């Protein structure tokens, strides 16, 4: 299994000597739980049966004067564990954002970009600021995960994170690989519409609003979207994601197992689709 969506905000080693990170995690990201060592993070992946996980930073320099984990810290985690696949984050409000991204990918081996318009507070359709970043992603052939929907961070502004806002981005960058997390909840219909039309749109399963992951996935994927639609039309575009540490990955695995998917579809969502979008090789068509 590859977990496409984890935030390493509670890993104690990253906070040592980084009071700015501790403040950012509490005040901007809104997490108030005790820190845990990296070994616990890896043990939680083990318990969930997850082989590798994507670690996501968020660069909020312009909006909040902080980075919720830096690209360098993600690179540090990758050195500590080969199971961690690092993404970069850049601030579209900074003129050198595209160059920062190119450097993070080349120097640190980061394999994708994380953007959160609701927390970074930028317009995804901003041609002057955001489009050069998308252009860099296309040049580097890396995916970009763009947060859509409910954001539990206290400073998050969901109005900036409606999936439909990505339509003009998709039209301008037809080769850009975009990952929409959380199925864009509550705008699931917008997310599904974009994914149906654009095969370069991927969606992840980290649907968290109320109830257990088993309950929220059942309501959205089974009752709202329909497993038949996913199997017929989105089978190569859905990725397993947990949004750790908002919830433990084991609970998403338990819920995912309860969906009762065809084994072939299950395998694609658990691993193959992620390998393809991350360019890791070994995926299937």
């Amino acid at each position: 299994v590859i977990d496409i969506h984890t935030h390493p905000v509670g890993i104690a080693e990253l906070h040592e000597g980084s009071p700015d990170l501790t403040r950012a995690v509490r005040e901007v990201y809104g997490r108030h739980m005790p820190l845990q060592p990296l070994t616990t993070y890896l043990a939680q992946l083990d318990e969930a049966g997850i082989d590798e996980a994507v670690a996501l930073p968020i660069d909020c320099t312009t909006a909040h004067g902080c980075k919720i984990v830096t690209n360098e810290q993600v690179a540090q985690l990758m050195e500590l564990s080969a199971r961690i696949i690092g993404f970069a984050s850049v601030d579209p409000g900074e003129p050198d954002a595209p160059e920062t991204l190119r450097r993070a990918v080349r120097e640190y081996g980061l394999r994708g970009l994380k953007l959160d318009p609701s927390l970074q507070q930028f317009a995804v359709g901003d041609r002057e600021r955001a489009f050069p970043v998308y252009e860099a992603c296309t040049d580097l052939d890396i995916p970009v995960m763009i947060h859509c929907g409910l954001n539990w961070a206290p400073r998050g502004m969901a109005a900036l994170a409606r999936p439909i806002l990505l339509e003009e981005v998709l039209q301008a960058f037809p080769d850009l690989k975009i990952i929409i997390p959380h199925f864009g909840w509550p705008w699931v219909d917008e997310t599904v519409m974009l994914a149906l039309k654009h095969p370069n749109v991927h969606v992840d399963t980290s649907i968290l609003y109320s109830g257990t992951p088993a309950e929220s996935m059942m309501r959205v994927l089974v009752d709202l979207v329909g497993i038949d639609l996913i199997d017929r039309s989105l089978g190569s575009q859905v990725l397993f994601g947990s949004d750790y540490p908002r919830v433990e990955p084991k609970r998403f695995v338990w819920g995912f197992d309860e969906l009762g998917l065809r084994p072939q579809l299950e395998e694609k969502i658990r691993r193959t689709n992620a390998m393809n979008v991350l360019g890791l090789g070994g995926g299937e068509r």
Partner: protein
Amino acid sequence: MRSIVTRIGVDTHHDAEMIDITHRVQDVVRDAGVSSGVVYINTLHTTTGITINEGLPDVEDDILGFLSRLVPRDHPYRHSRFLPSDGEMAVNATSHLRSALLGMQVSFPIENGEMVRGQRQTIYFVELDGPLHREAVVHVMGE
């Protein structure tokens, strides 16, 4: 009277797990230098337990299995929502309920500097929502 509080760190590796901490508690009691008194063993968490039972793997499996049957995962518990004070989903009602059933503290008399403990009594720190880094507290009181 002396009162000595010692924290014991426990790294758990599974969702549910029984970890034998008997020797660690014994060491704390001996180091305390109390000849006559009492020792309390508490967990600092609400999704773990402290219990005493026979130190056998099959008994451990039966205890965890029994707790799972008593408190199944697929029940619409009310404690299943986002908790702003944590910044996380609080969807672990099963862990809280299993912990409530098991208890969070045990105690032993201390006589001649040793715990008065039955031959088959093993002290367990019981993880019910792991893996996590956890803490138990050993409180020795006496003279």
